[in-house]
């Protein structure tokens, strides 16, 4: 009975959203009656609740292992621990889509809570846009990917979950990422509503900013967690593979980062209005594009879901309607919302604009590189690959100037910065910068790329410190620093500092680990010794035993470094339900560095020899640490922005 209820709830919500949309078109919002507005509000409230309920029903089906539901049968097994029964709900196409919908509903409800502070005409338009997006996704779920379809005869046992997904990572990575992606629907709806109204105001920017920030925080955390998960689970020793789906997930993040900066300009200076609107439309469209690419199985990727052309066509149609419609509207209304005022190059907003150019150029490049195989296939019929080496070459020249410029613009004033003032501020920073970089170079004598990365880190940190101290200056007392002023600095400024420090730490991690990593691969028999860096690794023993729901082969490695000796255990699992293998790398942390051992299968079979791969990744922890500091900065700013939720627009 339960699955049918879930199904019916989804269908009802589909009808309700259609009704809401039809009503919104029919009645001109100009003659909004209070009661009518209220009806619309309740309609959407009710639909959101229905969607959320159906998601809980699916979770219940998973927990109770109801194999009469096809989706449950395909994706779980009774021998799973409870946590993986729950997370298994979104470990597949249909379930994850329903989770996507539920997150959309959560945001919808959150929006309804704060709706009373908005002008009715505006709120009405936002609700209509939200209804359209919801309609598309509910339709997609119900008609092409219904998770509640029954199967008969009822199987006695399920097929099990992909072993890579049987991991705590699945509990957090998709929900966090979806909270980020789906959150972008709100800025998108705000932008469409603003375009329809034909005006973008500073108040509008204040209202939309926290929503952008929420998405950005979740996107940052979600991508970071995904990277960490891939690092320890795939056993490839790397943290980013330039896989098509990774790239596609990075694009909304890059654009949201750009958007955060440009909405700031709109808020403070009423500038870059059309740019802010365009970015929020594109960031949202890119999440749709990402959904499309992942769900239709267009590109070879580690994230592949079972592909189905019908799904692809549906979501592509939806993507085109929503995006082309929005961009058309944007083109028509552009002149109306555009601010005629120019931006002076040497000012905070000028710096932010330049910085934005680099961020967006890198996003365009990544997008083009990701879909380029499709372009070549369509035009010449050839199959080609565009992988990590390409992205590394093109991404670096775009991201380094962006980092340099963001360091500069932190230290610029809004509106206009006097060149003399700029000079007086930067010459000290420059001297310290050059001094520190040369010291580093003299001590460590590293290759150019590492030096560049370290220099970028130092520059970023110095610019944050420089701005902090300038804020503490008492202008009247010359060089004296007044510590009492620390309390006067707004919380959102501290948030900004943290976010940029996070970027600095991240870059440090990337350049050090990428530049100095070492790698060993070989086929080893028991008791053979491997030398990596100054570690001596002995393949000590191999145990085979059965665990919860997998068969384990655990290799124990004796690692010696100078006088320090420790054991590491690398596991290779074969899951009993699916028969699929997975690797659990042995990772030993030493300060911020990792020694990473992967034990592969026997080769050749019966020889007792194993493929062993060893990675030494120095300072790699800074990568994730930096990203978490970034997100923390976002949270700090959000605390400061919370007031704008309650502000009357």
């Amino acid at each position: 009975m339960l699955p049918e209820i879930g199904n019916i709830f989804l269908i009802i919500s589909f009808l309700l959203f259609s009704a809401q949309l039809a009503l919104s078109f029919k009645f001109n919002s100009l003659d909004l009656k209070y009661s009518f507005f209220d009806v619309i509000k309740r309609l959407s409230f009710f639909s959101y609740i229905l969607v959320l309920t159906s998601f809980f029903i699916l979770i219940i089906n998973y927990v109770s292992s109801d194999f009469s539901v096809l989706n449950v049968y395909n994706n779980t097994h009774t021998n799973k621990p409870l946590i993986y029964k729950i997370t298994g709900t979104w470990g597949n196409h249909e379930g994850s889509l329903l989770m996507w919908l539920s997150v959309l509903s959560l945001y919808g409800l959150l929006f309804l809570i704060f709706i009373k502070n908005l002008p009715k005409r505006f709120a009405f338009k936002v609700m209509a846009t939200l209804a359209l997006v919801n309609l598309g996704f509910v339709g997609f779920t119900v008609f092409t990917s219904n998770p509640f379809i029954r199967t008969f005869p009822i199987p006695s046992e399920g097929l099990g979950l992909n072993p890579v997904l049987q991991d705590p990572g699945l509990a957090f990575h998709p929900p966090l990422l979806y909270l980020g992606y789906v959150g972008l629907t709100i800025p998108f709806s705000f932008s469409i509503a603003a375009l329809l109204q034909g005006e973008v105001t500073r108040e509008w920017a204040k209202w939309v900013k926290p929503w952008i920030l929420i998405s950005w925080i979740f996107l940052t955390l979600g991508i970071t967690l995904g990277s960490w998960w891939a690092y320890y689970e795939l056993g490839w020793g790397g943290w980013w593979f330039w896989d098509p789906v990774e790239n596609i997930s990075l694009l909304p993040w890059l654009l949201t980062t750009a958007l955060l900066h440009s909405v700031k300009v709109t808020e403070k200076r009423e500038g870059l209005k059309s740019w802010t609107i365009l970015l929020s439309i594109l960031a949202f469209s890119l999440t749709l594009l990402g959904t499309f690419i992942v769900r239709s199985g267009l590109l070879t990727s580690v994230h592949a879901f079972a592909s189905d052309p019908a799904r692809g066509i549906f979501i592509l149609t939806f993507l085109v309607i929503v995006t082309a419609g929005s961009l058309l509207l944007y083109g028509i209304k552009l002149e109306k919302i555009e601010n005629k005022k120019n931006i002076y190059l040497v000012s905070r907003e000028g710096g932010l604009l330049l910085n934005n150019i680099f961020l967006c150029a890198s996003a365009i490049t990544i997008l083009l590189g990701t879909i380029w195989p499709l372009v070549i296939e369509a035009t010449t019929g050839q199959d080609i690959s565009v992988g990590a080496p390409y992205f590394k070459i093109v991404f670096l020249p775009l991201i380094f100037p962006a980092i340099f410029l963001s360091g500069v613009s932190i230290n610029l004033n809004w509106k206009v910065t006097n060149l003399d003032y700029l000079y007086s501020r930067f010459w000290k920073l420059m001297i310290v910068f050059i001094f520190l970089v040369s010291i580093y170079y003299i001590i460590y004598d590293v290759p150019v790329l590492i030096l560049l990365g370290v220099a970028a880190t130092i520059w970023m940190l110095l610019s944050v410190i420089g701005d902090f101290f300038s804020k503490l200056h008492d202008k009247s007392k010359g060089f004296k620093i007044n510590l009492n002023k620390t309390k006067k600095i707004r919380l959102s400024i501290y948030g900004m500092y943290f976010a940029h420090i996070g970027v600095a730490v991240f870059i440090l991690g990337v350049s050090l680990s990428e530049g100095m990593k070492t790698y060993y691969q070989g086929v080893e028999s028991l008791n053979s010794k491997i030398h990596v860096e100054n570690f001596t690794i002995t393949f000590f023993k191999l145990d085979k035993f059965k665990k919860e729901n997998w068969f384990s082969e655990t290799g124990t490695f004796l690692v010696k470094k100078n006088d320090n000796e420790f054991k590491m255990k690398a596991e290779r699992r074969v899951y009993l339900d699916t028969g699929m293998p997975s690797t659990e790398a042995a990772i030993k942390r030493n300060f911020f560095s990792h020694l990473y051992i992967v034990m592969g299968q026997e080769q050749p079979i019966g020889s007792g020899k194993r493929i062993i791969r060893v990675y030494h990744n120095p300072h790699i922890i800074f990568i994730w640490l930096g990203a978490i500091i970034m997100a923390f900065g976002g949270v700090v700013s959000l605390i400061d922005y919370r007031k704008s939720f309650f502000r009357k627009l």
Partner: protein
Amino acid sequence: MLLIKKILLTLLLLFVFTSLAKNIELEKEKMRKLAAELRCVVCQNQSLLESDSQIAKDLKELILEMYMRGKSESEIKLFLVDRYGEFILFKPTFSFNNIFLWLAPLFSFLVLSFIASKKLSFFKREK
């Protein structure tokens, strides 16, 4: 006489082996560098270098062997492309077909700068 011959032969072999051993490390390094830029044709988006699959192992051995025979990187790439297609190259060729791909960073930067330049003024406005 025979003894001298034997000693000479041993010395010669020793010399050959040591120089070979030195060489092999160098060539191995070259092989790893190239393998990182090649796709493991049977895996999901994994490079040849990191793949444990049978065919990846064979291909790596083959690349090493070709380097040892004095083949250049471009010759080896050509050899593999002839057999596996350009699909195997993670770094696309600098060919006319890929001109937009390689110009993308510059091109998108220029277009965006052009659009932005219309909004920017480079000299201070009067207040």
